[in-house]
């Protein structure tokens, strides 16, 4: 039986056996891949679940609207979440326009020479620089040299620096992935470079740029090290001046120069206290932080969906 099979194998290929072997291989790899996936997801889910079990019961109206306190059950994260939100506004307002402009310049305008190559390599590597280095840079430059103080503005500028490389790279990737046909069609009708970029390339690249911006913002909102370095305070029992006011000119930028704290710092501060009550508060803050990230991602998906639908 075996001999005859071997003899047959010498003369012709056993297609059925080949297919069977391929199927076994596929199955083996699928099992390995699935196990790895389950393992990672399980660890992640366990972490999130642990955080939720500890933190969710603590989240209530009082927790969101109270300032920090010596008593864990009276403490809240009002100043922390307002601080995080305001810092994010500054970060986005600085990083997105500058990052997109830099990406567009590098991809569409810059001459291809050694200088551009060096800038390109540097931008890519900047994304991997440890965030505390950005904190030190900001402390030396913004806080001490420019004397801007330990304010929301400085925190926003620091985090904007941190996520600029992410947005620049995302912008370039998004522009590069646009089909040549669209580019040629746009130049073909006689459009100048600015018209091609603003009327045709940026709208097409927008979903990709937005994804990059959100990835960057999600990273920025969780950053602790650079914000501590520039001197964010852990105990803030007041809110920055509101950005809108009842009298002319109705907007107020004093909040930019206000001291602040952010949620990761509040968490860090609470987790290093001995009382169990503060640990619960830290977990609750973690849940809110996750929710904020989720919200930003959801917003990005929604905007992308709207853009795509508008185009069909």
């Amino acid at each position, binding site marked *: 039986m075996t001999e005859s099979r071997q003899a047959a194998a010498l003369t012709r290929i056993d297609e059925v056996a080949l297919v069977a072997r391929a199927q076994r291989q596929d199955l083996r790899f699928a099992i390995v891949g699935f196990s790895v996936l389950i393992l990672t997801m399980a660890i992640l889910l366990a972490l999130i679940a642990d955080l939720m079990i500890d933190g969710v019961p603590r989240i209530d109206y009082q927790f969101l609207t109270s300032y920090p306190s010596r008593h864990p059950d009276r403490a809240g994260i009002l100043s922390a979440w307002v601080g995080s939100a305001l810092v994010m506004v500054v970060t986005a307002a600085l990083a997105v326009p500058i990052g997109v402009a830099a990406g567009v310049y590098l991809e569409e305008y810059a001459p291809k020479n050694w200088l551009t190559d060096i800038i390109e390599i540097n931008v890519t590597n900047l994304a991997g620089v440890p965030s505390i280095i950005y904190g030190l840079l900001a402390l030396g430059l913004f806080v001490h040299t420019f004397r801007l103080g330990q304010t929301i503005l400085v925190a926003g500028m620091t985090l904007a620096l941190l996520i600029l490389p992410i947005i620049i790279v995302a912008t370039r990737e998004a522009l590069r992935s646009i089909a040549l046909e*669209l580019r040629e069609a746009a*130049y*073909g*009708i*006689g459009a*100048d470079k600015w018209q091609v970029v603003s*009327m045709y390339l940026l709208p097409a690249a927008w979903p990709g740029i937005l994804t990059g911006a959100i990835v960057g913002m999600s990273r920025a909102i969780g950053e602790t090290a650079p914000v501590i370095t520039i001197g964010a305070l852990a105990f803030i029992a007041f809110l920055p001046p509101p950005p809108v006011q009842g009298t002319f000119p109705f907007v107020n930028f004093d909040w930019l120069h206000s001291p602040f704290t952010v949620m990761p710092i509040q968490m860090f501060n609470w987790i290093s206290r001995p009382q169990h009550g503060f640990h619960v508060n830290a977990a609750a803050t973690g849940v809110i932080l996750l929710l904020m990230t989720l919200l930003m991602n959801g917003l990005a998906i929604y905007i992308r969906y709207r853009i795509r639908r508008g185009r069909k």
Partner: protein
Amino acid sequence: MMLNVLRETGVMPAVKESAPVAGQIAVQNPVAARENEEPLRARVNGFNFFYGDKQALYDVSFPIYDRKITAIIGPSGCGKSTLLRSLNRMHDLYPNNRYEGEIILYPEQINVISPQVNPMLVRLKIGMVFQKPNPFPKSIYDNVASGLWVRGIRNKAVVDERVEQALRQAALWDEVKDRLRTSAYSLSGGQQQRLCIARALAPDPEMLLLDEPTSALDPIATARIEELVTELANTVTVLIVTHNMQQAARISYYTGFMHLGRMVEFDRTESLFTAPKEKRTLDYITGRYG
């Protein structure tokens, strides 16, 4: 015999010796001597093109007559698309490409491939329709109006009128007049290509370049485009590249046959197809290669 008659009557272009490129066999480049009688829209003269170090076009010369359809045929890779895209300076979008020689556009007498001439100026004068329909991801109206907008024409009434006119010229008006605001992607392939023709026509170009405009279309859509191009030749100069010889024979007035980056033969379409002077042309049109 008929050939002689044509030559004597001046219908047939005379043969002119072209400057040989170093290391290359000199090819007789037939260039029409009739430009005094028929108005020229452009003249390609001793044109070489390089992709980096690789030369793609060798000493190409031929005339493009005003408000006539000129077709360029040849096998894949012969350089016909490269030639057409040169007339719109499309190669400027990619690095390391180089033009040599001249392509003079009349009546302005500008050399469209000269580095001193801004590619944008050329593209404002010469419209292009690509092989694959490439409408913008916008509405039908916005697509046709885009060429006007980039020229700074914003007056709603003027734009409306030009859009309608261009869509009528492209034989698309009746099919889309009730849904100008819907996406161009909702159109069929053939309609999209006619939309691209309308887009190129709206700013009233001096010349229209068509790069194998029907190669992605079915026979019925192809027939409609051919009909439309024939109609267009009354008002605009058309240069069309096609790998479909029958198409060239059906619609063009002049035809050039290219092979390996050279213009092997350029002549009145009927002469080229009935009495080619070059053996390579004969071999190609009788289906021996290509």
